[in-house]
């Protein structure tokens, strides 16, 4: 046994290497995955800004981009939790399609009287989505049937019901204007618009380029409030760390990060303000993103989901009710799939049998591009959102460029593979 005392100091040295000034560097390195992803998104946007000769950042196109991709991101929020908990949900596209059909039938075809009101229908649809999630989650959580199989079955079942509900190949519409506002509406300008440059008409009767700039002031105010509160909460968290005697990230890093993020956000807000203001669906999405960031970062239930995905047995032996938690994750997914379905239907203005077809793959790809691990236990909400936007910008940019849909898929596939390979390579190096 005399030889065993030797390794004790050795292991101590190995673990102490990272101390001192390297903390700052390691903080940057640990966040590189997140920053790297955002930088990748910015690079892709700049790329398409050039290749589409400036169309990408045009206010009207930004609104389109948000309206086309919001349902992917909404569903990706639920999918992130599903994947972090070590599962997968292949049924989300079909559930979205089914809910869209259900909503259309309730609002347009079935004589429901006051219950065909868009708001009532939406609430019922979200509850139905939750019930679907519960039905699938029940088999996964309590009978340990692999989620891949349960949700593959769900994918077939709900696509089938969707098509049957719409009576074969037909579509149902048009949907009420109030309902369509969910996707294509903009927040009302309660403050009033501000005309910066009045439109100037030249001799030929055409408006001169660069004139006629009106700002949606409510949008501007909301943007400024959002940026200020982002900076305030960031500063407050720093203060709290320092007050408790802990090292915060270097101040310069914090300032640069906050300034860059704020500048980007204000630029986008300004672009929206020059058009018709913030799309309603963007506001809904923003609130949901903030909520899920809070749940995953700060709430006990979020922490438990990560623990369950990281090591289900250890989580169970720590007193976590893993079955119930899994069920909740799938109920959440069901509700968000239903919301995704409502957004799709509202954007199209009608329910079609192919609504949401294949979108489960875009949703799952967004989560994996965002750095989640297929083994569970790893993944960030912001990552999934950025991953969703990367997919969305590529769709949008390539469409404007006139790239064939077939080749768009090839490019998206390569980006997904590249992102995950990059991730695994980085992990192995560390």
């Amino acid at each position: 046994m005399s030889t065993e005392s030797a390794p004790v100091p050795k292991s101590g040295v190995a673990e102490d290497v990272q101390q001192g000034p390297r903390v700052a560097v390691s903080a940057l390195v640990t966040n590189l995955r997140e920053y790297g992803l955002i930088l990748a998104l910015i690079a892709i946007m700049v790329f398409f800004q050039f290749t589409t000769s400036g169309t990408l950042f045009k206010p009207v196109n930004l609104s389109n981009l948000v309206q086309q991709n919001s349902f992917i991101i909404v569903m990706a929020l639920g999918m992130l939790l599903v994947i972090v908990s070590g599962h997968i949900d292949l049924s989300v596209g079909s559930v979205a399609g089914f809910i869209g059909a259900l909503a259309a039938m309730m609002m347009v075809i079935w004589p429901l009287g006051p219950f065909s009101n868009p708001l009532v229908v939406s609430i019922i649809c979200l509850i139905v989505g939750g019930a679907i999630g519960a039905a699938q989650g029940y088999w996964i959580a309590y009978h340990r049937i692999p989620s891949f199989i349960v949700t593959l079955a769900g994918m077939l079942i709900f696509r089938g019901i969707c098509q049957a509900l719409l009576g074969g190949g037909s579509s149902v519409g048009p949907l009420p204007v109030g309902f369509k506002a969910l996707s294509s509406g903009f927040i009302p300008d309660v403050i009033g618009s501000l005309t910066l440059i009045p439109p100037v008409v030249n001799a030929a009767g055409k408006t001169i380029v660069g004139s006629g700039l009106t700002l949606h002031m409510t949008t501007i105010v909301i943007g400024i409030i959002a940026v200020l509160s982002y900076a305030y909460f960031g500063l407050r968290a720093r203060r709290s760390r320092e007050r408790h005697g802990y090292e915060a990230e270097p101040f310069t890093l914090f300032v640069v990060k906050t300034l860059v993020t704020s500048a980007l956000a204000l630029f986008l807000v300004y672009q929206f303000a020059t058009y018709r203001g913030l799309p309603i669906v963007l506001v809904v999405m923003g609130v949901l993103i903030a909520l899920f960031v809070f749940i995953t970062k700060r709430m006990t239930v979020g922490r438990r989901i990560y623990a369950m995905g990281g090591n289900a047995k250890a989580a169970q032996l720590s007193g976590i009710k893993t079955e119930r938690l899994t069920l909740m994750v799938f109920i959440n997914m069901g509700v968000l799939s239903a919301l995704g379905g409502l957004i799709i239907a509202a954007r199209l203005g009608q329910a079609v049998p192919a609504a949401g077809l294949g979108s489960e793959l875009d949703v799952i790809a967004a989560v994996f591009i965002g750095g989640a691990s297929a083994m569970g236990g790893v993944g960030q909400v912001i990552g999934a959102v950025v991953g969703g936007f990367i997919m969305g910008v590529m769709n949008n940019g390539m469409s404007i460029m006139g790239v064939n849909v077939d080749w768009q898929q090839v490019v998206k596939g390569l980006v997904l593979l590249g992102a995950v390979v990059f991730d695994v390579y980085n992990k192995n190096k560390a």
Partner: protein
Amino acid sequence: MASTILEMRDITKTFPGVKALSNVNLSVEEGEIHAVVGENGAGKSTLMKVLSGVYPSGTYDGEIIYRGDECHFKGIHDSERRGIVIIHQELALVPMLSIAENIFLGNEHARYGVIDWNANETRTSALLKKVGLKEDPKTLITNIGVGKQQLVEIAKALSKEVQLLILDEPTASLSEKDSQALLDLLLEFKRQGITSILISHKLNEINRVADKVTIIRDGRTIETLPKKDISEDRIITSMVGRSLDDRYPSREPEIGETVLEVKNWSVYHPIHAERQVIKDIDINVRKGEVVGIAGLMGAGRTEFAMSLFGRSYGRRITGEVLLKGKPIDVSSVSKAVEHGIAYVTEDRKTYGLNLIDHIKHNITLANLPGVSRHSVIDDMRELAVANDYKAKTTIRSSSVYQMTGNLSGGNQQKVVLSKWLFANPEVLILDEPTRGIDVGAKYEIYTIVARLASEGKAIIVISSEMPELLGITDRIYVMNEGRIVGEMAASDASQEKIMRAIVRGEGKAS
């Protein structure tokens, strides 16, 4: 006098941080059954892995001379080509393949990659006959019992024209009847001239079949005894006879009232529903007391502890649990934790830690309400708790943000311990708390245990290391084959007494 078939000279094998074998010598004669005995972790299995090439030549020091040649096995294929076949403790059969497919796996009778099933099955039948197994070669492995699976492994060894057969605790999971059959088979092989090395710690088996026995302790050869000198006493003394220095912190036990009492606890196997794993166990532990549960691997100690902790193991659990005299419900982990029971697992990587998360999150996992308000985690409070326990249990890491997967075994163990200390239990069950960790860290763990006892916690320590139990506990239960077979005050106990209780208990159980 037969010739020497195998000679292992001065074998030394080092793992990072641990010297598993140091200058081990083993000499086996042609045609004998040579038993190798030693405590868990003494180095028996490591020695056999060196021999069979699992640890390839070059990763250890020393020489292996087999049939007069010095051998440098690069892998298991090299040793098998020379007729050395090892059958591991955990059987290496593919459950959903048939007996014939398993026996010739990787070695199929085939032409151009197309398998000749008739040839395989005919040969399998012949082999099964040799080992006395009456089963269709097409039967799936999953449909036959462990005893028969063991025989399939042996048949597989025979198919490789085995000359030296190594069995690593072959009867550990077999019933009495299957064990007898297996031992008879070894004797039959001996008559046919096959040499066997039998690793076991069941002394009655060794007495029955072995021609010689080599005792290994702490990675060293203690002695080799010929048949006439094999006796229980001699083997036990050699197996456990190490000095007890100041490897354990001293403490003054202050023992109070009974905290936890378990009565008539019975548990059945989760899959083999008819097999009773835990049989009518009664134990108790008092305030400030450290109670040990001794026993060999497979005695049912972990199964007992996990079944107690929220029914995390087994089926048809019956019995009563009393906390300070009142019956309590421990039917789920969260209920057990609420009643102040904590179980620190023996397998920290599988059952104890989220290896892909950092120390801070692992420490607070069993008591998240303790760092949150209205289900919202207070990050600063959590950080303070993590740093507090990091200091208390002397976890060595750059910060509490280090991934637990990158920590050494000792530090991982301290994280698991911290997690349960933060849950503030009254009864702490520690299952093999020092397994696979170095001597320095062991001492620190013992110190923590002593401090907890002095703070009035009731502690149960399950350990296969008898010196450890003698060093840190006040009272010891001895468990074997699912029963308590002895109880003694630590001051009266000795390793011989514990071994005797285990060995005596061996025959009694069915």
